[in-house]
């Protein structure tokens, strides 16, 4: 069931996706409302990650339109837009700094007016099973699963309206994957967090209650000569 237009948080219209000068996907149209999850499916190489990069404004829009609350990323200001529609990378990316400094990274940029929310950080770490970690520890010494949990906490701290999840648990141990999935589910219920997921299995989309969009029908075909 499509939500009514006014509750639409995010909308993609006639979007085409290119990678390395080659058009991968075209004529993409979809809409996501607050608190909704969308899983992208399709064979590997079809352009799922490239699509997420375009949605995250890390790659340019070749043709078509992306709208958040009815305005384009440029209208929001790309820098601010990226915080509202935030990409969680597939590989955990952490800097050579303490856990606390890594979490506070996004609060040092000039676009950020808020100060680092200590309590919320502690709460998120607790819910991700990382309460016993010292905030002074170097998180790069953690297991990969723990590192990815730190990255999820870092993303959630900037309070995005939508998360772009690029196979967020593909490299994780079952315990970490469980923590990540349950936090996303909870944030969706409590804070109306929306997400677009590239899942590494169908089950994950079901567990997260995301509807599925197959990209197969959008694979770009060269127009007949």
């Amino acid at each position, binding site marked *: 069931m499509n939500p009514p237009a006014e509750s639409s948080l995010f909308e993609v219209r006639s979007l085409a996706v290119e990678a390395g000068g080659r058009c991968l996907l075209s004529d993409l149209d979809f809409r996501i409302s607050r608190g909704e999850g969308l899983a992208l499916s399709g064979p590997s190489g079809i352009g799922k990650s490239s699509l997420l990069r375009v949605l*995250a*404004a*890390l*790659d*340019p829009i070749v043709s078509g339109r992306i709208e958040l609350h009815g305005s384009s990323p*440029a209208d929001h200001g*790309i*820098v*601010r837009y*990226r*915080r509202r529609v*935030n*990409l969680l*990378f597939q*590989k955990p*990316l952490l*800097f050579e700094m303490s856990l606390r400094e890594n979490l506070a*990274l*996004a609060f040092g*940029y*000039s*676009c*950020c007016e808020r100060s680092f929310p200590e309590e919320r950080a502690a709460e998120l770490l607790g819910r991700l099973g990382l309460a016993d970690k010292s905030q002074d520890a170097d998180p790069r010494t953690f297991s990969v699963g723990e590192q990815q949990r730190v990255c999820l906490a*870092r*993303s959630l701290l*900037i309070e995005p309206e939508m998360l772009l999840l690029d196979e967020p648990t593909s490299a994780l141990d079952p315990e970490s994957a469980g923590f990540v999935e349950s936090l996303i589910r909870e944030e969706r219920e409590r804070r109306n967090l929306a997400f677009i997921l590239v899942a590494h299995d169908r089950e994950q989309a079901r567990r997260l209650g995301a509807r599925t969009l197959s990209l197969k029908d959008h694979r770009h075909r060269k127009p007949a000569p």
Partner: protein
Amino acid sequence: MNATLDVGFLDLLLALVLILASGLISFLLRLELEKRLALGAARTVVQLLLVGWLLKFIFNLQSPLAVLALLGLMVIVASRVALGRPSRRVRGAGWLAFLSLAASATLTTFSVTSLVIGVEPWYEPRYLIPLMGMVLGNSMNGISLSLDALLERLSERADQVELELSLGASAWEAARRPLREALRRGMIPILNTMMVVGIVSLPGMMTGQILAGADPMLAVKYQILIMFMIAAATSLGAMLMSLLTARRLFSRDHRLLREKILRGA
């Protein structure tokens, strides 16, 4: 400086005998270095004689235009050498290197010759050309090292840069870490030199001056001036080059343009 002992061509021939002796040793031991040694010796003689002739010519001309033309040529050559054999490159870097070198070397050289030494007239080639040469030689290395480091960081750790962008960093904020690293790399040689100058080795210019009969204290004062000039020019050049390059590698909408970093030749 009347104490300078003249070196005659006969004396140079004597030095050549020493080279010939090394060549003979190489031949006897089959080190196969004779050819390279001969080529090196020949190039040294030819290149330096040409430079000597050119300098003499320019010194005699006493024309500001000729001096400026030579300085311009020196900057062009230095910017080509600075981009010599990089592992990665960016289109248009030649221009950026030229700009950075020209700005940093001109600024430091002229502020020393006109404000500190008070050279009259301002284009006096006896001061300008050797000073500019020394500054360029060092600044060129700084530029080359920092460009290499910057491109390495921006391509090999592109994911970290994009992570910062995704968290709300502006292009400048995301470039900060790679820039810091690049400048550090570019400044290391001159910082190391300043740490040990006079202890490990005497700088070439100072040695030359003392050999040429100058008062050691005067030579030292000149050397301090030179070291400061070189340090200033190196950091200025490396900064300009890194900032200009970083500006090319980010789009206006704060995206990292990875595709602009090309593999080296």
